[in-house]
């Protein structure tokens, strides 16, 4: 309508237009003005603007409960906040309203939660809010919330010079709760700040929260903190739940900003291999880059080579002592060279940083995700696979993964990302026996017995893999002579040999229990039995293969289903396992006598083994099934009434359901009756190595011309 204005029209209402303006500009002025009036009228009726006006003008002491105005205006503000984000003036007004506690503390929390900025956060608003914080009437939880908000929005504060000068006030709020938050704010610290902390520490002694603060400083600016910190401070980061983060990401997506994260360790770079523009960047493993170290000490004379410049192993070896780690520790996950360096150097702060980033990424993606995020996307799988391969390469897990897994297991449904989760689970280091039950066994048991057969098999395999890794770890790290395995590696597990054996026993007993009941519930399913026998193949050789003086027999719930299994492979494997047990036990007995070491295999173990052996030989060889003392006992009348002829031989090498078909085969091939030896040779030729080892080690046969069936049993009995 403005454009149709006739330039020769009557003078307009606004008399302030300069007289020397051409008619054209006067008309354009008028059009602008009309538009401005329109806009102001719209704004004046806009509920958001009204709400802001309300909050800036409301008087102190106005009641909240039952106050419809407050509710309506808060809803209006929240609506804008979650859709587009609040403009800077709105942030100022709302923050002032909240922190001044004009209407009490209850709206304060609600307002803080909805303070999502659209563009920037004005610095003055934050400074004024800190002033209100110092007035001292705000409850502690709200203080923590405010500081968390500042931390989350830190990157969006437009200028930080005034904030720098009030760090001292923020410092006074350092308590254990908001420890991490404050330190993250103080990332741009100067030298004197660290000195002040060190002075404080020398005055107050090694207070835990001070140590924590210093260890965090050491993480980010290691050259400033030179004192040594106990390595226990490895996982002291409470990855806080930031509901603003997800809302912020949503708002920024709408406003099509590049997503930035408040934790400066995470990525800003696009993955070079994937040209697709990504919105959720916190999962990306960043490209390896050199450290952005703006505070390098100019007097440092060492020439540091950034890790990104090393492309081959020989270069790595040459520069081993002057390597500079990148700023983004997550980038190390992609490069095997970097991982090798990390493993060799064993730098505490590097691992702290890596674990912090990793824990943060895992928590964000899996534990505190916003609804509707697709979990099986390519990105997630790629990230987890990369993490798994790094762990596989280093042959151990990261502590942040471990912490994440314990939390995740409690809310896992058993099928989400199963292979990856089970893979990560098998990499966790030895868990002390005092907490292994609660952390690991209880959630796993709940999952095991409510899940399908395939989950059961997968979990048994995972636990087998875990056992193998623990055994390997022990055989690498155990000292030659002593019983103490004190670990000084970055995994920082202090564990004595007996503590380690306890944990291992717990694990083996746990799997034994899972296996017995699992087989019962699944009707002795042969797939499950196969995975269980895999586990016991590891267990039976613990002494000889891994040097651990521990022998644990399988429970009856595993032994008997395997012995009476209908598939020959299971029986064969059981025979192999029994043979290995015998070898291990005999070797342990001789070693015990010779070297007089403090280890001791209990009588109970020998007794169990002997019992199993006798049962097995009597059943398979001597055809003395169901006799008293032979494990499975049944009443004579019951057996007779079953009308099975010669029931005592119903599970020997010929009549066993697993081998009956071979016996028939043999009979067809050979014709008239042949000596036992021939039949046994025939069985061995079918590939039953386990049976061969078992028979040869346990059964001595008098080599007479007519090889009868009644050969004696020779088993090594204590």
């Amino acid at each position, binding site marked *: 309508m403005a454009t149709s204005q006739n330039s020769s029209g009557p003078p307009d209402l606004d008399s302030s237009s300069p007289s020397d303006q051409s008619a054209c500009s006067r008309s354009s002025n008028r059009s602008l003005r009309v538009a401005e009036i329109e806009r102001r009228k719209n704004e004046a009726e806009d509920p958001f603007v009204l709400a802001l006006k309300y909050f800036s003008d409301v008087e102190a002491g106005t009641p909240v409960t039952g106050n419809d105005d407050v509710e309506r205006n808060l809803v209006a503000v929240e609506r804008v906040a979650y859709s587009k984000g609040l403009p800077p003036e709105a942030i100022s007004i709302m923050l002032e309203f909240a922190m001044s506690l004009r209407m009490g503390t209850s709206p304060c929390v609600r307002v803080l939660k909805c303070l999502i900025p659209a563009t920037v956060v004005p610095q003055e608003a934050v400074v004024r809010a800190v002033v209100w914080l110092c007035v001292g009437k705000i409850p502690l939880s709200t203080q923590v919330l405010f500081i968390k908000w500042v931390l989350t929005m830190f990157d969006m504060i437009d200028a930080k010079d005034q904030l720098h000068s009030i760090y001292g006030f923020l410092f006074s709020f350092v308590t254990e709760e908001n420890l991490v938050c404050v330190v993250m704010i103080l990332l741009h610290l100067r030298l004197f700040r660290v000195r002040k902390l060190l002075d404080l520490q020398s005055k107050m002694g090694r207070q835990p929260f001070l140590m924590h603060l210093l260890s965090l400083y050491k993480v980010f600016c290691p050259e400033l903190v030179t004192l040594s910190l106990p390595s226990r401070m490895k996982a002291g980061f409470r990855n806080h739940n930031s509901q603003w983060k997800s809302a912020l990401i949503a708002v920024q997506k709408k406003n099509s900003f590049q997503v930035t994260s408040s934790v400066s360790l995470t990525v800003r770079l696009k993955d070079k291999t994937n040209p697709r523009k990504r919105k959720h960047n916190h999962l990306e493993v960043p490209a390896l880059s050199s450290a952005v170290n703006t505070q390098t000490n100019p007097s440092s004379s060492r020439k540091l080579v950034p890790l990104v410049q090393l492309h081959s192993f020989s270069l790595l070896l040459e520069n081993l002592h002057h390597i500079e780690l990148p700023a983004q520790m997550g980038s190390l996950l992609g490069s095997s060279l970097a991982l090798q360096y990390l493993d060799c150097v064993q730098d505490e702060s590097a691992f702290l940083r890596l674990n912090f980033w990793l824990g943060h990424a895992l928590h964000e993606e899996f534990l505190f995700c916003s609804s509707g995020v697709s979990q099986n996307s390519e990105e997630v799988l790629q990230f987890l696979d990369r993490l798994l391969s790094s762990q596989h390469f280093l042959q151990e897990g990261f502590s942040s993964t471990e912490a994440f897994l314990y939390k995740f297991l409690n809310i896992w449904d058993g*099928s989400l990302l199963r292979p990856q989760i089970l893979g990560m689970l098998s990499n966790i280091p030895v868990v002390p026996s005092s907490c292994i039950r609660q*952390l690991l066994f209880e959630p796993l048991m709940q999952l095991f*017995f409510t899940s399908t057969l395939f989950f059961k098999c997968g979990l048994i395999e995972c636990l087998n893999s875990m056992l193998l890794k623990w055994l390997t770890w022990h055989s690498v790290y155990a000292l030659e002579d002593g019983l103490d395995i004190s670990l000084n590696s970055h995994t920082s597990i202090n564990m004595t040999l007996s503590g380690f054996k306890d944990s291992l026993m717990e694990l083996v007993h746990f799997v034994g229990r899972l296996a017995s009941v699992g087989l019962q519930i699944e009707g002795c399913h042969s797939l499950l039995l196969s995975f269980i026998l895999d586990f016991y193949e590891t267990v039976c050789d613990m002494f000889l293969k891994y040097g651990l003086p521990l022998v644990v027999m399988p429970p009856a719930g595993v032994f008997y289903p395997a012995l009476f299994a209908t598939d020959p492979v299971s029986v064969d494997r059981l025979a192999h396992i029994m043979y290995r047990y015998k070898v291990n036990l005999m070797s342990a007995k001789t070693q015990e006598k010779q070297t007089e070491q403090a280890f001791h295999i209990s009588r109970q173990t020998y007794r169990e083994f002997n019992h199993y052996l006798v049962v097995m030989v009597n059943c398979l060889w001597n055809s003395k099934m169901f006799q008293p003392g032979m494990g499975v006992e049944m009443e004579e009348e019951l057996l007779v009434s079953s009308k099975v002829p010669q029931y005592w031989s119903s599970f020997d090498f010929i009549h066993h359901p697993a081998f009956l078909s071979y016996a028939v085969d043999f009979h067809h091939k050979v014709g008239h009756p042949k000596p036992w030896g021939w039949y046994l040779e025939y069985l061995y030729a079918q590939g039953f190595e386990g049976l061969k080892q078992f028979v040869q080690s346990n059964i001595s046969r008098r080599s007479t011309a007519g090889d009868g069936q009644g050969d004696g049993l020779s088993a090594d009995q204590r």
Partner: protein
Amino acid sequence: MSLLKPFSKLPGLNAANILLVENEEQLQQRLADALVEETAVTVNVRLAKTLPLPLKNEKSRPRIDLVVFIINLTSELSLQSAEASLKYLDPGYFLGKVCLLVTNARNASVPPARLDTVRKLAASLHCPLLCAEDQTPDGVTNAAERLLTILKVAAGLVPMTTALYLSNLTRCTVPSDIDQQGFD
């Protein structure tokens, strides 16, 4: 009070009956579709919003082997409705014939206290607590498979295993607050 009784009727042959109680009535339909796909056993699925069940169906209703309460953690009302419905179950059900299923356990907007409340409730009732991913079809299928595992035992279709035995193995435990430093 019209309690739902577990043993007042005879069981069907090779059949199992499951009752899904959900206040929102969102997940139960999808779960039901996944549950009836089972071929080895005839599975009858009944859906309800709350308990007590209407009296007019009392005669025709078969014996319910397993009652599953579906709780959506993002809504407080869901939890309250489930708690109120629990009162209408005969105590015989708490010997392994009740199960709690929660959704959205990994959601950021869920206050952690709510999951703790559900966990404590499950622990006090000695019944298992299952977490389900209801956003994806795979998650729903998996939840259905897990329910079937418990259902088959509760209906007496697994030899040598009773519902009480299984509930002892799967009972929910309340983990004490594990500090990230605590497990050092």
